[in-house]
């Protein structure tokens, strides 16, 4: 079998692939921002020490983390239209799903980051007469953020890879773009290979950058 990549020209890429790539990137970006915000709320709920906040957040996080993402995607695709009473597209459903799902993972990262700060730091802040919010803002969070930034970014790369799973509900992401192009031109093999190469290059470059960043900002103890 001969591989023939000659059908890849700019027209094809801009017609099929870019549209999907654009959606994959937007989905990653929105889900990261939304997931971090919602995840912070969840993390603060779990660290609050109040049972009525801690228990629901714990159930939510552990529940999300023990179900496959594909099942969560299917659930939301089924439930969200039923709840709001009108059909929504696969793309909107995917965005909602990824925010809800990734928030569980982001909240665990946040929680670990905040808990990684030695208690002595908090006590030192209190001894200096800082209020809770000053202590958080000036002592705990800057250090916690440094600790968790590489993990957060790595999770974002995983999130980018996971966006390919919107395949389950037929949303048009990068993988779908390659697949459609491959089907139209009768070259599915080359299309899948090209998709793999592009995913690899993007993810490898990103994880390399994260590694460099980690070396740069790591706190030396």
């Amino acid at each position, binding site marked *: *079998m001969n*591989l023939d990549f000659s059908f890849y020209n700019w027209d094809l890429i801009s017609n099929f692939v870019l549209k999907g790539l654009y959606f994959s990137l937007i989905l990653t970006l929105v889900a990261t921002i939304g997931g971090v915000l919602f995840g912070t709320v969840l993390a603060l709920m779990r660290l609050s020490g109040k049972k009525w906040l801690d228990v629901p957040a714990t159930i939510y996080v*552990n*529940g999300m*983390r*023990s*179900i*496959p*993402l*594909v*099942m969560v995607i*299917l*659930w939301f695709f*089924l*439930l969200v239209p039923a709840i709001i009473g009108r059909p929504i597209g696969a793309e909107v459903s995917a965005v909602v799903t990824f925010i809800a799902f990734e928030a569980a993972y982001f909240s*665990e990262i946040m929680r670990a980051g905040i808990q990684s700060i030695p208690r002595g730091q908090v006590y030192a802040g209190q001894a200096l007469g800082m209020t809770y919010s000053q202590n958080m803002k000036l002592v705990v969070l800057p250090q916690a953020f440094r600790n968790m930034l590489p993990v957060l970014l790595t999770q974002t790369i995983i999130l980018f*890879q*996971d966006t*390919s*799973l919107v*395949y*389950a509900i037929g949303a048009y992401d990068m*993988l779908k773009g390659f697949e459609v192009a491959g089907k139209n031109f009768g070259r*599915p*093999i080359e299309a*899948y*290979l090209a*998709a*793999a190469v592009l*995913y*690899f290059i993007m*993810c*490898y470059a990103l*994880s390399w950058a994260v590694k460099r960043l980690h070396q740069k900002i790591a706190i030396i103890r």
Partner: protein
Amino acid sequence: MSWDWQVFCQDTMDREVVQGCFGKGGDITYLDWMLSAWGWTVSVSLLALLLALVLGSFIGTLRTLQDRPMIVRLGNAWVELFRNIPLLVQIFLWYHVLPSLFPVLRGVPGFALVVLALGFFTSARIAEQVRSGIQALPRGQRYAGLAMGFTTFQTYRYVLLPMAFRIIIPPLTSETMNIFKNSSVAFAVSVAELTMFAMQAQEETSRGIEVYLAVTTLYIISAFAINRIMAFIEKRARIPGMVVSGAAGGGH
């Protein structure tokens, strides 16, 4: 809206409710179908886990060899390759691309290809954990082994690996739970596992909530069972007096 759990007792062909919920004489109900799908999920996951453990341990160990930069680099390349391509794309590569490039693979059933895909994908992650487990050991351990006159192989076999594997049981637990979750991606190449069942049964019966609830429960039961089994292994393998930092607590 109302529940209709009777849907699981329906025959998959004529949609009649069957007495006792299990089909007779070659007919199957949705319950039968779901249980067999669970069986597929479990078999895909366990076989992939076996493959991933063998490959991952081997490659992870190679990555810690000293004075063998080429082998280390190959091991690193392996890990980067399988970590930076989404699992779904890897499954497509195994299922669509490789058989057309290598005709030998053409007769291989989809089930086996998915096991290979999932196994190789996870092997990279296990290799990473095995490497970090070995490197978490004090350097003196290796030197002690060598000073005793052990060969490199013996040092790994009797000194480093027994300790390293105990250290990495918690991350291996989450990896095992991940394999079960990741096996759901096999739906994309029509392996008859749970997610595939969920999608098809939802379509046929329009009782999506009931079907999804049942399937989700089975996934949660599987995850919980693995968690308990691994906790048992961790307890049995524990060496009194050996305190492993950061390894305490469950495997989440």
